[in-house]
């Protein structure tokens, strides 16, 4: 252990206490975190105002109605409405951030500004108006049919042609579609003698205010999206923490080999001591990443009064499966790092392993939606996938995973860790002395069997 301790400390110090790590892994995420909260709103782009004239062929009533709707204050496009509907399910803190003037009032900036005039024209003027659209004199011309305004049009009748100028942005088009479709519906309703405003008010679907009754007696607002996101958040947390350090392990091992420090180290310590020191050193780096990102997540849940979504046993499982995942990834990275002389060669060896390890990321929806389904159960017994699939399963909000399955996964997973670390040690002691061409996977297997 005397020789391992300095190696652990050096590995940790030159990874975690460097400007690159502090800026890349600590400061940047801390700044990014608040941005993530308003990210959906920020994605709503600021776009150019929509200005000009639309001509409607075939119905003066629709043209008039569209003109009236366009002059209603704060008319919103479909995109803005969808955004607002999505925001309705969000906690108050996010809603207030979305309209915070200090953040530039992202919701308001997502709305489209417009100055539209809507005219009508006779069917005979369609071609002339199309030419005006081509000449950029008009924004669009809509050709309506009489059948469109029937009380009960068929599917074929319930559509109209809209001719737009080239280069019209999707948001502008979306706004015009919406405006004209609403005008057509309103004219139909009016022609039937009904009160459109009253009807619209009655048709508005009620919102559901779900509240979760807590075991201690309280009740808190239930956010469905939070429950859905917890499994993937846990898996990504394990993924980021293990792969970040795994990657550092790979690059530092390659660096030590390529700049020939390895030979100096080997004169002082055995390959096993070097490998252990490096893996343990990076384990501490990995833990920092886990605690930092995990801590931020927990702080966010506490701020939303949602801390009870993560019971203590979930944290215990997180730690157990994180340890399992880290040592699996570390054994792969240390083996490959010791066997190659540059990163390019490493990519070709890591590629196949990555394809397998990325599976849980692809399968997170079916696994977390059905944590006891066949797919989830089978994949949670395949060694390199165990920690990632199991963390999805145990944090999913569906049926609880049977305890015996968790126990089997833990025993099998840690047994796999022992085997993988042993194989890694065998490859490492041969690989660190090898220079030149990268070995094939078959050669790596031969190295395991070397005396």
């Amino acid at each position, binding site marked *: 252990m005397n020789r391992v*301790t300095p190696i652990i400390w050096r590995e940790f110090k030159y990874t975690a206490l460097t400007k690159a790590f502090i800026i890349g892994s600590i400061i940047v995420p801390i700044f990014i975190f608040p941005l993530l909260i308003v990210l959906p709103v920020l994605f709503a782009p600021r776009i150019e105002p929509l200005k000009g004239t639309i001509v409607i062929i075939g119905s003066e009533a629709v043209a008039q109605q569209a003109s009236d709707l366009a002059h209603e204050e704060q008319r919103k496009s479909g995109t803005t409405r969808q955004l607002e509907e999505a925001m309705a399910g969000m906690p108050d803190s996010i809603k207030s951030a979305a309209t915070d003037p200090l953040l530039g009032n992202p919701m308001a900036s997502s709305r489209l500004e417009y100055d539209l005039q809507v005219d009508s024209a006779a069917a005979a003027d369609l071609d002339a108006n199309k030419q005006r659209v081509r000449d950029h004199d008009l924004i669009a011309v809509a050709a309506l049919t009489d059948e469109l305004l029937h009380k009960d049009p068929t599917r074929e009748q319930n559509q109209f042609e809209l001719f737009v100028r080239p280069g019209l942005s999707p948001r502008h088009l979306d706004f015009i579609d919406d405006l004209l479709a609403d005008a057509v519906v309103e004219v139909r309703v009016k022609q039937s003698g009904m009160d459109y405003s009253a009807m619209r008010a009655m048709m508005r679907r009620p919102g559901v205010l779900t509240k979760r009754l807590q075991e201690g007696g309280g009740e808190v607002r239930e956010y469905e999206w939070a429950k859905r996101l917890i499994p993937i958040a846990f898996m990504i947390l394990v993924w980021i923490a293990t792969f970040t350090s795994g990657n550092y392990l790979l690059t530092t091992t390659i660096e030590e080999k390529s*700049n020939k420090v390895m030979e*100096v180290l080997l*004169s*002082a310590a055995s390959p096993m001591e070097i490998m252990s020191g490096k893996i343990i050193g990076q384990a501490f780096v990995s833990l920092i990443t886990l605690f930092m990102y995990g801590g931020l997540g927990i702080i966010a849940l506490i701020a939303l009064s949602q801390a009870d979504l993560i019971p203590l046993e979930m944290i215990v499982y997180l730690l157990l499966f994180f340890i399992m995942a880290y040592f699996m990834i570390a054994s792969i990275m240390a083996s490959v790092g010791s066997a190659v002389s540059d990163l390019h060669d490493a990519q070709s060896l890591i590629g196949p392993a990555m394809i397998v390890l990325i599976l849980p990321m692809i399968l997170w929806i079916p696994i977390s939606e059905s944590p006891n389904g066949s797919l989830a159960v089978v994949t949670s017994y395949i060694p390199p996938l165990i920690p990632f699939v199991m963390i999805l399963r145990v944090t999913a909000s569906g049926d609880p995973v049977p305890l015996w399955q968790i126990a089997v996964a833990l025993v099998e997973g840690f047994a796999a860790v022992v085997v993988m670390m042993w194989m890694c040690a065998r490859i490492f002691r041969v690989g660190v002395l090898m220079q030149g061409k990268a070995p094939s996977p078959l050669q790596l297997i031969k190295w395991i069997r070397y*005396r």
Partner: protein
Amino acid sequence: MNDSSIRLDHVDKRFGSVHAVQDVCFDVPRGSLLGFLGPNGAGKSTTIRMIMSIIYPDQGSISVLGGSALAAKNRIGYLPEERGLYRKMRVGEFLRYIGRLKGMTRSDSRTAAMTWLDRMELLAVDRKRCEELSKGMHQKIQFIASIIHEPDLMIFDEPFSGLDPVNAELMNTIIQELHAQGRTIIFSTHVMHQAEQLCERIMLIDRGRLILDDSMEGIQKTFDPRTIEVEPLPGIGLPTHIDGVAERTVTREGGLELHLNDHVDPHRVMQRVVEAGPVRSIKLRRPSLDDVFVMLVRDRLHETELGTTLPGATP
């Protein structure tokens, strides 16, 4: 009391189809200063790595400082041929790190690092990153790293490469001081005159076999001198033909070097030269290590074909 620093007993190592080290036996007494020579790919590095317990022999045994090589790691200093430093690490920190790996306490490693940096005239670079150093400085730092823990056994692979004559002389002095302190030193080099100048004993390995293991004096006695140096008197030349002389060359100082045919007794040729006319001086030139190296490695090729054995070689 075991007087061997290193003992190799019928050591054999293969890498797949390559027989890197073949049945090598030798014994290095404590306090020796030994040159470990051989052409590229001869098996030097493999042998050194086995001594360092970086790799292990397939057959045979290795004893280092009277015990297991692994247990003796802290008593061995090793300067590998290919220099390796952590580019981003500061010089002083690197030396302390190596000292700690070699079992030194934190304060001992700090004191030793400063002492050696001072001795090697590198105190000013203590806080510099290794990547900021020149090649010669790299070499000196690496040298310090190999001796910082005051090992009993030191193995230096090409210790003088990359050094200017002043620094080479400084390192030469330090090696001799360490030797005078009773430490065992083995060094491998391609520069024969350095080995000749420093070493008491030479081992030559070629294609995995030890083909020479003798003292410098023994080597000079063993290897038949094939050149006679003659300084003629002014105005008196030598006959154009002398029996047994294959070739003659004129030196820059005006002397002559007579290169003899194989299997000719050099004393008979010297007698013929003297009988042919008066000369100012005549002497047999002792073979340099360079000559011996070239001769042995060249002859080894021949020997492989004929199946014969050279003097001093392991059977």
